[in-house]
């Protein structure tokens, strides 16, 4: 059992608040990802959980017990650092066994535990090497191994994959997910990469400027972003935004004016009235090329990725990104018409909040574990 509660956490660095009152509940065995642009406070928040940074106000509780005053070593956590932070003067084995050595665990037992962790990560042949003789991926695994040896209740990962090349990153992503199943531990993971967040998280915490923008499952964040920031941050390429005028609104939907005719978006229109200006948001993958579509644009750039093609369109002073299938034959400077399914569109008020969709997306509450054929069944 390991749960974590953050109650109104505040961090103040010499008068500037970098964490402005964060509340969070992490369930046992949950994989939680903190995501946000650099400087949003996600790393600071993790370091506060780790005990490497003191908490200005608010309460951090592990399994219901306040740990604000507990030193980092005694919180029962283990952390994997972005730089791996391996001890350069120690062998892989000594690196992994350092915490046990400090805890005065007898040598034989220490070795046994290190070997067990090394087995999980296929590190056995490397145990006698020094970190400088390892590749990036191997160092990464040693850092994870060092965390496993401590048998922590919660694993903390601070952007652990950012120093790896793209191929290795994909591989480690899968390996981490496998580890999560295998170790059955609570994990908290910090990243600025929304793809890592989407692929690994049970629960994503989107942070900006020290404030939690939204907490939810990956699919919930994708389909029901709470505000314009989350909508723009999750998804790639970024969501298209367009200022639109409201023609009429009621609880069943909102009519907005588009260049090629009006369009009814099925969101709760309470409090919105005709003449208001809203921001319409549509993901590039939800735009469809259509000769009869209400929107037009001139192609500026075409990026052909093979399977899909991204079209960068310009219309007046608005710009659109449209993801079409890979066989689009258009050329640069072509004029194209396109449309979208209003059910996929989002509307944001002037202060950035999304108007709630009338129907919830069927996958929004899916459990991540259902995506994998894994050991979830034998877990408990």
């Amino acid at each position, binding site marked *: 059992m390991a749960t974590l509660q953050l109650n109104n956490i505040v961090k103040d660095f010499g008068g500037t608040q970098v964490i402005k009152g964060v509340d969070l509940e992490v369930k046992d065995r949950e994989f939680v990802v903190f995501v946000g642009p650099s400087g949003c406070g996600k790393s600071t928040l993790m370091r506060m959980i780790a005990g*490497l940074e003191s908490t200005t106000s608010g309460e951090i509780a592990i399994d219901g017990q306040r740990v604000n005053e507990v030193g980092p070593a005694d919180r029962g956590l283990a*952390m994997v*650092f972005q*730089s791996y*932070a391996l*001890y350069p*003067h120690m062998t892989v084995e000594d690196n992994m066994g*350092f915490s046990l050595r*400090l805890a005065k665990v007898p040598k034989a037992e220490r070795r046994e535990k290190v070997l067990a962790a090394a087995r999980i990560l296929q590190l056995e042949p490397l145990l006698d090497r020094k970190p400088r003789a390892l590749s990036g991926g191997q160092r990464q695994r040693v850092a994870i191994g060092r965390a496993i040896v401590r048998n922590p209740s919660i694993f903390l990962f601070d952007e652990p994959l950012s120093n790896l090349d793209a191929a290795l990153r994909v591989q480690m992503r899968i390996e981490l997910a496998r580890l999560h199943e295998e170790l059955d531990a609570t994990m908290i993971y910090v990243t600025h990469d929304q793809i890592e967040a989407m692929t690994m998280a049970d629960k994503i915490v989107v942070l900006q400027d020290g404030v939690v923008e939204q907490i939810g499952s990956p699919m919930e964040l994708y389909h029901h972003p709470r505000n314009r920031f989350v909508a723009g941050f999750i998804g790639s390429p970024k969501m298209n935004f367009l200022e639109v005028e409201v023609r009429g609104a009621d609880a069943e939907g909102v009519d907005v004016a588009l260049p090629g005719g009006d369009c009814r978006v099925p969101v709760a229109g309470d409090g919105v009235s005709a003449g208001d200006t809203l921001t319409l948001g549509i993901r590039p993958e939800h735009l469809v090329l259509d000769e009869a579509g209400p929107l037009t644009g001139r192609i500026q750039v075409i990026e052909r990725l093979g399977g899909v093609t991204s079209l960068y369109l310009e219309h007046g002073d608005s710009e659109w990104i449209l993801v079409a299938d890979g066989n689009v034959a258009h050329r640069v400077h072509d004029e194209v018409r396109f449309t979208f399914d209003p059910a996929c569109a989002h509307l944001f008020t002037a202060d950035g909040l999304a108007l709630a969709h009338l129907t919830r997306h069927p996958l929004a509450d899916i459990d991540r574990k259902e995506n994998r054929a894994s050991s979830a069944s034998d877990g408990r």
Partner: protein
Amino acid sequence: MNPTMTKKLLLTLLAWGIALIVFFPIFWMVLTGFKTEGEAVATPPSLFFEPTLAGYHEVMARADYLKFALNSIVISFGSTLLALIVAIPSAYSMAFLPTKRTRGTLLWMLSTKMLPPVGVLMPVYLLFRDMGLLDSQLGLTIVYMLMNLPIVVWMLYTFFKDIPKDILEAGRMDGAGTLQEVLYLLLPLTLPGIASTGLLSVILSWNEAFWSLNLTTSDAAPLTAFIASFSSPEGLFWAKLSAASTLAIAPILIFGWLTQKQMVRGLTFGAVK
């Protein structure tokens, strides 16, 4: 011969010529140490002679030479050890727990180095007289420790700064207290840096002449004072002076050659790397 080769040969000649001229006084001193007193003052200077260890024997035979040498060793190594003990925690806190005041503190430490010794000679002399520290190993050790403390803190600070903070934090997560963190992680990782810092401090103390000449007379006088005592009866004991000088500078020259790279950082307070 191709032009690059010619250029390289010319460069070699020029650079070696200058190096030998600059090094000549030291070379000549070492050479003179192996001459008899007669050969030492001979004109024209004798380049080819039968080397003798007579000068060295005579120097070593003077009981007080060993006393001076011992004073130098005790004082320079003692002051270095003290300086390191005081400086390591200070440099640790400045490198790993920086606050808004850290920068100010470092610069202030540098500024204490700017106080010319001659400006405070009188009070230090009188204080030492009243405390019975004149002509004592302890007195000179304290002065050298204080004299080198800013440089030692600065140098350690620059070496500690090179250690990623993450490594120490990983240690903390692994359960290391501050003491264990320093003992198991910081010291092994920065040992070369600490060693060269220590050597620089030894070199500076060993060669220091102002305080040693003014605060000691006989009991605690180090080698600088011993060598200076050759200045009065002019021209009498050149071979012996050379032998004693060679002994006095040899270890320091070797230390200096070993640490020259890291020393630059310490001597320039990190402004040149």
